[in-house]
């Protein structure tokens, strides 16, 4: 069965500092990986997915199949980046594309 691990429940950095949120996964097939973000009092929303290799709000994430990791990085954190971040793995089971989520990392960017 697939599994997503986010080892840090809480992460604090100062504004302007680099930030890296760790995500490791276990899955025997070819994974599709995503980062979702939930800002305070807002709903869960997609931040980025590895397939598109895009940078959203300055965040990037590279899929490393050797290390089975999909860490989220940003070179200069901003206070508005403070939020809950979830790494998720998409698995196709039959015709379903269910998401398996990690337990999340609460990022706080300090002024």
């Amino acid at each position, binding site marked *: 069965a697939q599994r*997503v691990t*986010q080892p840090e*429940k809480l992460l604090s950095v100062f504004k302007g500092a680099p930030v890296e949120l760790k995500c490791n996964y276990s899955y025997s097939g070819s994974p*599709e990986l995503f980062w979702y973000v939930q800002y305070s009092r807002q*709903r*869960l*929303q*997609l931040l980025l*997915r590895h*397939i598109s290799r895009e940078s959203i709000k300055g965040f990037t994430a590279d899929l490393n199949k050797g290390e089975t990791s999909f860490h989220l990085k940003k070179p200069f954190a901003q206070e508005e980046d403070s939020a809950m971040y*979830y790494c*998720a793995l*998409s698995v196709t*089971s*039959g*015709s*379903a*594309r*269910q*998401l*398996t*989520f*990690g*337990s*999340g990392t609460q990022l706080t960017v300090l002024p």
Partner: protein
Amino acid sequence: GAGVSQSPRYKVAKRGQDVALRCDPISGHVSLFWYQQALGQGPEFLTYFQNEAQLDKSGLPSDRFFAERPEGSVSTLKIQRTQQEDSAVYLCASSLAIEQFFGPGTRLTVL
């Protein structure tokens, strides 16, 4: 346009009561998912619909949980004889392709 909506936003039930949670997906979205999010955890998959067909219900924790989507649009998640361990946020998501769009969730508290 309107996103995914869920009602009620908050529900308090006494142990043993039945509850019904509603999800209105984005118009035209074929796929609909239900997730359960316990406190401090990431969302966990419950069940998946493609139009009105329930194609995967492997995540439903017991036979007290039942979901339907009779006309391929609105979906209802029903929990019979609620237990304290059912206390969680129940998230609905809809999708047209890969990206899942989440609703605000229903927070269920079972006393």
